[in-house]
């Protein structure tokens, strides 16, 4: 219960609506009871030949009471149900904020379909439980004692025996709950599974189609769907048991009433009208109890979901800013790396190991090395997207003493996978900037990225919407857009991770020239495969297969030494010379 209590407390924060809504409950219930009493009274007075003038009055009273009840029912629903929506949104927002703050390590190990289903399906479960749960529980809290008290005034022993089946029900519930819990968890997990499978399929649809994997994908999806069905059916069975139990308690009560009530009538200690009232009231006592039983059936599902949400909320960012974090007002962009290493969770060996290098402000650092040598990893460490071991300094200050946002504020990053958002083209560029960008500035950036001609050909120019991940752009267009986005923030340190791999030679030459111009005064870090892109760098870092620095120096220096760099350079040259032949 403690688990859900925390979520329940979020409800309680919306005091005004809740109090208003809850005040409505007894008022509406009172009106309801008054209607019953009025009808009961009327029935008592009805005899053959009795006067009928009171009937019209009763009719209008019933209508009046019903209208009265209606108003409060309306307010009750409107306020209380709305609160459950507020809470849902707050919860979603909180989860979202949590998710964007979590480190890459978390995102790499979790399946996005699963995460999404926590934010959607699980939150929904909580809402569906707590919303009506709150309403009906409180309704029952008001209604049950009131009705029982009223019943007691009619016939105390009869009223008190009704408690027995309730106790029985309580015990029975205890017995079924473990099953409910088990299947609820299974259901939530299988929903997440379905969502992951669908998610993967849709985002890899080109490969799915290209390899004709539809049948296989359908089979896998069906499998997940079937698993979900099984779990749901089992959960349904457990819920059926609780449902039957609640009704059994209800029915037993009526048996009791029949026996005792019949007996009391025979004894003539109970007039017929009273028995009618009694039955009607019992109905009213039991309706909230049946609702409670229903809620008890939902509880395990909400409980399982709460657990999954808690898991997310309990995830911690790798690090948080120190409270005495230093602020950098005007960073220069000098980087110092000392023995920088990073090992991925679960990996046997470090991906980057013992990298030491000085990058003076305004200089260019090239990072080269074979596939999988750790270039991207190293670059991610610079922005502390991965938290490396060793020392990393910006302008001579250990980045761990800096506010994270200050460090990232001076970085412009072009990711290797050139990710874009499905927004307007211009929004994707503006995404990079902390401030609003003028049209002129965006044009300038588009030109810098050699995209001017192509953007002009887009159906709506800068306003054109880009598909998810940028699917409606060509590979090279995506990359260049990412470059424009990085430049948009006028970064002190520009990081290019294999950012020219998908552009042709002509555009590359143009881009390099533009970048050189735009990079003037900036620190530029270039990870690349084509050595020509780094040849002009002040310093080149050659990473080996094991993630260690194999050599470093200028282009000329590296050419003098035998090693990977010289070999590769010579091969690249040879290929070109060969091809002239």
């Amino acid at each position, binding site marked *: 219960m403690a688990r859900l209590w925390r979520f329940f407390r979020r409800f309680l924060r919306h005091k005004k609506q809740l109090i208003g809504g809850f005040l409505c409950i007894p008022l509406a219930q009172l009106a309801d009871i008054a209607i019953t009493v009025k009808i009961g009274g009327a*029935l008592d007075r009805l005899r*053959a*030949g*009795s006067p009928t003038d009171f009937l*019209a009055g009763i009719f209008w009273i*019933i209508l009046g009471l*019903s209208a009265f009840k*209606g108003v409060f029912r309306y307010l009750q629903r409107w306020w209380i149900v709305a609160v459950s929506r507020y809470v849902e949104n707050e919860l979603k927002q909180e989860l*979202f904020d949590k998710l*964007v703050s979590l480190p*890459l390590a978390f995102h790499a190990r979790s399946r996005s379909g699963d*995460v*999404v289903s926590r*934010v*959607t*399906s699980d939150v929904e479960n909580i809402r569906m439980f707590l919303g009506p749960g709150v309403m009906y529980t409180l309704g029952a809290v008001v209604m049950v004692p009131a009705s029982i008290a009223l019943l007691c005034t009619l016939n105390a022993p009869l009223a008190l025996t009704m408690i027995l089946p309730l106790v029985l029900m309580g015990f029975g519930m205890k017995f079924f709950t473990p099953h409910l819990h088990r299947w609820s968890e299974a259901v939530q997990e299988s929903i997440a599974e379905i969502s992951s499978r*669908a*998610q*993967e399929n849709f985002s890899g*649809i*080109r*490969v799915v*189609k*290209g*390899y004709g*994997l*539809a049948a296989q994908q359908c089979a896998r999806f*069906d499998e997940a769907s079937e698993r979900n*069905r099984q779990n749901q059916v089992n959960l*349904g069975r457990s819920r*059926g048991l609780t449902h039957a139990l609640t009704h059994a308690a209800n029915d037993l009560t*009526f048996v009791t009433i029949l026996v005792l009530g019949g007996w009391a009538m025979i004894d*003539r200690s109970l007039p017929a009208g009273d*028995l009618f009232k009694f039955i009607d009231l019992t109905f009213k006592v039991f309706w909230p109890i049946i609702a409670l039983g229903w809620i008890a059936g939902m509880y395990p599902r909400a409980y399982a979901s709460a657990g999954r949400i808690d898991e997310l909320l309990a995830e911690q960012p790798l690090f948080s800013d120190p409270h005495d974090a230093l602020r950098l007002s005007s960073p220069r962009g000098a980087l110092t790396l000392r023995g920088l290493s990073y090992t991925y969770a679960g990996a046997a060996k470090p991906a980057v190991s013992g990298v030491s290098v000085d990058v003076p402000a305004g200089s260019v650092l090239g990072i080269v090395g074979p*596939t*999988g040598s750790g*270039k991207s990893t190293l670059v991610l460490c610079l*922005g502390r997207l991965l938290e490396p071991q060793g020392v990393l300094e910006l302008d001579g200050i250990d980045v761990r003493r800096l506010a994270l946002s200050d460090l990232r504020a001076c970085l412009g990053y072009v*990711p290797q996978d050139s990710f874009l958002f*499905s927004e307007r083209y211009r929004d994707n560029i503006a*995404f990079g900037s902390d401030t609003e960008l003028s049209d002129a500035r965006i044009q300038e950036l588009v030109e810098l990225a050699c995209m001017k001609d*192509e953007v002009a050909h887009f*159906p709506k120019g800068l306003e054109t919407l880009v*598909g*998810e*991940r940028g699917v*409606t*752009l060509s*590979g*090279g*267009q995506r990359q260049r857009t990412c470059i424009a986005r990085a430049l948009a923030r006028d970064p002190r340190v520009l990081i290019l991770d294999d950012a020219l*791999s*998908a*552009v042709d*030679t*002509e555009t590359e030459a143009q881009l390099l020239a533009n970048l050189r111009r735009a990079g003037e005064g900036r620190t530029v870090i270039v990870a690349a*495969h084509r050595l020509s892109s780094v040849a002009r760098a002040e310093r080149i870092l050659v990473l080996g297969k094991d993630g260690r620095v194999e050599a470093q120096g200028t282009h000329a220096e590296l050419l003098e030494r035998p090693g990977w760099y010289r070999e*590769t350079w010579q091969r690249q040259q040879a290929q070109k010379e060969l*091809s*002239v032949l």
Partner: protein
Amino acid sequence: MSSTDLDPEEDDLVSSKAWDNAILLRLARYAKPHARLFYASFGVLAMLFMLDMLGPWIWRHALDGPVHAAVSARERDPAADIGTFVRQFWYWVGGYLLLVALSVVFRYHEVAQLNRTGQTVIADLRSRLFRHMQSLDLVFFDRRPTGALVTRVTSDVENLNEMFTSGLVVLLFDFVKIVGVLAFLYWLNWRLALVVTAGTPFLIGVSLVFRGGARRAHRAVRARLSRLNGYLQEVLQGIRVVQVFRREKAVSARFAQHLDGYLAANLKTIFLFALFFPVIDFVVSAIQGTTLWSGGLSIAGAQLSYGEFVQFWFYLALLVAPIRELGERYNILQSAFASAERIFDILDTRPTLEPEREKTSPPGFSTLPLRGHVRFEHVSFSYTEGTEVLHDLSFEIRPGETVAVVGATGAGKSTLVNLLLRFYEPSSGHITIDGHDLTELDPARLRRAVGLVLQEDFLFAGTVKENLILERESVTEESLEEALAASRADELVARLPGGLAHPVAERGATFSTGERQLLAIARALAGDPRIVVLDEATASVDSNTEAQIESATRKLLEGRSALVIAHRLSTVRRATRILVLHRGKLREQGTHAQLLAQDGIYARLHRLQFAESAG
């Protein structure tokens, strides 16, 4: 680039003019294969209903019979022997107990059976929906955020569960119940029953008034939800960009906007239904009040006995309950209808490509292996009207030939691949393989014959081996080994703990970009493809490995047709033919030496690349 059709605002709001009945009928069609489950559900509900009806009957007989007799006997003579009455009374109680026991059993089945029915039907519908989506074109997927699509197969489908349980079964049953009870009421006392019936037009009127607004509101809710989830999904995928650019606050604000929209839509439904229930309740009270009034008059006028009235009153309660519940259910129904519309919207989307069948092919053709003779004849193509991406393109790739395509970025190279694999249909011209138009070929067969490496390739969660094999029969241990060696992925696999059994994370996130490309090449080569398509397959691979792959694959490509797209001219130098694509037009064509001699675009590109590395 698509323009208007990308607009999520319009795209997401599925509006259909379908009436509730039409939707219900269609849903019933999907439920039909599971008719048995529905019959069972009906059976359970009918039993419960009967038991519910029997209850009051027993009560009446117990109270009016023995109890009444005993009371009157005692009234006449306080010392009268009422033993027989008491015994009779106990019989009735025993009967009632039996009834209670039975109804408990059926209560269990009420939930279990209905739930089973609903879940089975939606599981079926979900599979159907997913299968249908697999047959849709890329155009469909290009336009829609994955998160929104996922929402349709998950949340929207789940929302239908209520529809099949509360909806089809209970609704129908409630209806039967209402009609049944009403008929019974007429039988009991037609005059009073007439009074009751007089209220129904009000009920129907109220429902109709609310329906329009409710449906619109629920549609908005579903659309907003789908957009919300789409955004969430997208941000998760781009998380590193968000974090490096410190856009956490900005995306959070955007998400908040989506949430606000979602909330506003929800509040609207809450408002409508908060209003709806009390109104229905009020009408019901009015019916009850009127019945009491006229019943009272009849009792007073001695046209009706008190006992009869009480009985009528009891059964009236049986009528009132389903009506109230219908009110409650109406909300669920409208929400489910909104989801159903969204699901039907997809099911009604037809693939724009022609029916995927081998139409004019000779018998036995479809089992014949393709040789892989590719021919483009005057092919033009545009993604959106008005912007031609490819213009009048003609070339051919004979088995054993490697054709390379070079050209500026955005020239339309990847588009060639999209057309060859029939992801899209050329707007004019033909593409043939072995002389058969692509439209005559079963796309599945075509694609089985192709080994494909996309510019933006994709690894599935699973193991490395699963990703390489992809359940193709054509992949054998030897061919896999050979492919791994040719793509230089063997070294990588050897390094992985577990080797081929090494787990792959979603999208292959734990591999470097180059490593992913190596695996994709291995995958393409492993299936003994007739046609190999490599779109920038080694763009992120170091030149050493690239050279090794180039020479290793040359042997593998013997006898196969290959289409190779590359920016690095060194990789295409040896191609049988090089096509130079410029702004969607084929500008030059020939061998490396011929093109250099021609001194056109290719020669210029070549000089540039050379100059660049020299400087």
